[in-house]
């Protein structure tokens, strides 16, 4: 059999894995791979303008298509620029395979130009990482990487490719099968344990489902909805789990957690059985651990054993893929409706409905409501901060809609490149990016990618001239000392002791236009609907809509960090 180079085998492997898009940025150590990609037409290369944006784009592509996102970057700084994106994907269980260039083997360890130990750097933020030291291992390692990334609890895998290994000739074979003795993810559900869980649920007087991101990842939404409707048990979701059942469903209460709905948090505090699926009980949802769901027996389905009984004690653990477990459960469930319990919940809903204070000025909720009305089908990608929490509260996620964000790591700068990746994976769906003015500037260079790839993204910038979420904490807990959060501050404001501030910079509309995108600025409620209508007309270029909003806008309700429901701040 004719021998081929490692570079050729890599491209062959990508084709066999069905990779359609690769998000890449070139460099000296990967130039031979770029060359091989040039010679073929099956895989399209997308060239974001920064490696961080590249990995976020691949991440959003993976989240919105269910496929593995693939990245290719060079050694040294190309590799280190992946770090934030790998951690983001690791936290939110996103399947990625990232190829990093590496200097030739004889140079490793010599502090060669653009040499870093990227496997060492990323060891704790990847599911698996390895340097290919021998040409004959290359095919097997790539095969394993794709398998590890997408199975079990999905996650990012990094493969470091020394330049000389890739140049070496070797077998053209790409293996068909994987056998990793230390990695045998178990997806199937233990029936006995599942029956025990359902028995407990049946006996409950105040049963509650807690749905996490795992339901969305395993695409278990349909079967979960079926179970919810059969049982009549109400549902709260985490931010990542939003959309697990349609948010307009009568049994959906709301999100729980730090910025969760009052009724959702009350339901958790008062339920007697909490049937949770695909969540790791992050501190942002539990608040003070001892007082989380104090009356409840807790059932927990999760693919990751290490997520069970880590933060809170679980009474009935079930290690399984959410969809497999729920599909099995759907055969056994019955109607457990407790009208008294549902009435109690609707009482809380009426007592403190989720609402923003009335504002004559343009309010974030006006914008989100308009999106809810105008789009039956859409992928909404948020950045991180106040707007993210507001979207998680108010965005209606119904079938045909998907909400993605950096939930675990909370990575500012995720939104825009995330939109790029989502749109590439879903060319026929509207993709709406919602970002703050801070996060937008963290990957603003992606205008070039979006324009050149002809991606008609709708980019909503909620501009309050502040890093709003930190400002919110400063307002509530730091005596309104707005240190480091005013995005107009600088030399002039220091010189004048805060008397004078320059105009906001950048001018987002002009900036968009300079890239060849469209820009619209909106000041009033009355202009919101028209702005979206206008944006929809641009089918070849992205449209940025800058919404100039009130800097005083806050996200309520809010539970104090580390607090309990009793520390709930409704408004002030």
């Amino acid at each position, binding site marked *: 059999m004719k021998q081929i180079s490692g570079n050729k085998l890599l491209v062959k492997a990508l084709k066999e894995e069905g990779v359609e898009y690769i998000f890449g940025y070139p460099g000296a150590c990967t130039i031979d791979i770029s060359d091989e990609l040039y010679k073929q037409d099956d895989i399209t290369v997308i060239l974001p303008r920064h490696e961080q944006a590249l990995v976020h784009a691949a991440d959003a592509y993976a989240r919105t298509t269910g496929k593995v996102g693939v990245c290719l970057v060079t050694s040294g700084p190309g590799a280190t620029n992946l770090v934030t994106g790998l951690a983001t994907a690791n936290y939110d269980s996103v399947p990625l395979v990232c190829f990093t260039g590496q200097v030739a083997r004889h140079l490793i360890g010599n502090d060669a130009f653009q040499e870093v130990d990227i496997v*060492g750097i990323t060891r704790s933020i990847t599911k698996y990482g390895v340097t290919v030291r021998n040409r004959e291992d290359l095919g097997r390692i790539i095969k394993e990487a794709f398998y590890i990334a997408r199975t079990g609890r999905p996650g990012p895998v990094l493969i470091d490719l020394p330049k000389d290994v890739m140049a070496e000739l070797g077998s053209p074979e790409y293996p068909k099968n994987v056998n990793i003795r230390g990695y045998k993810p178990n997806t199937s559900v233990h029936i006995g344990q599942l029956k025990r869980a359902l028995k407990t649920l049946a006996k409950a007087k105040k049963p509650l489902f807690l749905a996490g991101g795992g339901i969305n990842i395993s695409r278990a939404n349909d079967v979960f909805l079926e179970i919810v409707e059969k049982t009549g048990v109400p549902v709260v979701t985490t931010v990542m789990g939003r959309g697990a059942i349609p948010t307009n469903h009568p049994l959906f209460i709301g999100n729980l957690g730090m910025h969760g709905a009052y009724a959702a948090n009350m339901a958790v505090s008062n339920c007697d059985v909490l049937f949770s699926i695909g969540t790791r009980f992050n501190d942002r949802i539990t608040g003070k651990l001892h007082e989380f769901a104090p009356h409840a027996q807790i059932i927990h389905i999760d693919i990751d054993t290490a997520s069970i009984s880590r933060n809170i004690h679980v009474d009935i653990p079930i290690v399984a893929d959410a969809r497999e477990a729920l599909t099995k459960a759907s055969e056994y469930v019955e109607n457990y409706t407790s009208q008294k319990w549902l009435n109690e919940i609707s009482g809380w809903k009426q007592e403190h409905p989720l609402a923003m204070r009335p504002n004559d000025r343009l309010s974030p909720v006006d914008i989100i409501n308009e999106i809810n009305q105008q789009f039956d089908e859409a992928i909404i990608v948020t950045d991180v901060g106040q707007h993210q929490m507001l979207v998680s509260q108010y965005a209606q996620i119904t079938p045909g809609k998907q909400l993605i964000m950096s939930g675990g790591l909370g990575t500012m700068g995720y939104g825009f490149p995330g939109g790029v990746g989502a749109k590439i994976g879903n060319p026929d769906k509207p993709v709406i990016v919602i970002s703050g003015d801070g996060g937008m500037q963290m990957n603003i260079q992606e205008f070039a990618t979006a324009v050149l790839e002809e991606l008609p993204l709708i980019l909503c910038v909620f501009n309050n001239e502040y890093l709003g979420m930190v400002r919110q904490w400063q307002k509530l807990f730091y005596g309104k000392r707005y240190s480091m959060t005013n995005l107009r501050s600088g030399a002039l404001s220091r010189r004048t002791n805060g008397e004078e501030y320059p105009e906001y910079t950048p001018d987002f509309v002009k900036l968009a236009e300079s890239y060849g995108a469209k820009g619209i600025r909106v000041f009033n409620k009355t202009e919101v609907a028209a702005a979206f209508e206008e944006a929809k007309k641009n089918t070849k270029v992205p449209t940025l809509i800058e919404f100039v909003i009130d800097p005083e806008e806050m996200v309520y309700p809010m539970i104090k960090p580390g607090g309990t429901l009793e520390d709930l701040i409704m408004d002030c």
Partner: protein
Amino acid sequence: MADKGMKKRWISLYVENQVGVLSKISGLFSGKCYNLDSLTVGTTEDPTVSRMTIATVSDDETFEQIKKQLNRMVEVIKVIDFTNTFVRMKEILYIKVFNCSSEDKVELFQIAETFKARVIDYGKDSLLLEFVQTATKNDAVVKLIKEEFGRIEVVRGGSVGIESISMMER
């Protein structure tokens, strides 16, 4: 930290004999603030497999979490909890004692005999002892010799353990 069942525990770990695995395992302990009392590693009868013996001081919940975190690592083949199983466990300890007088040497020979140690090297005014016993006994020996003698030098291997056939010792 809550003192819920804080105690010393042991894990025997089968891992892939690959570059970076030791770093990954030890990185887990440092990254997640788990105590790592000792860690030994060596290859097994199968050269592609290494076996580690890990000692940690932790409470019940943390220890459960440690085992789960180890188990989910791709490079980890098998995690065995040695805390409550029948095992044989030993540690090698070298103690070099300097500035010994003749009386000191006599005493050190007596200590060696008492603790079933060996005097393996000998100089004009120094002596090298080798102990192969449980880590707990080694703790005691180090304490004793440190108290009795002036300048000493200690190196320890960390416990290695294997399931016993019929007897237990740790």
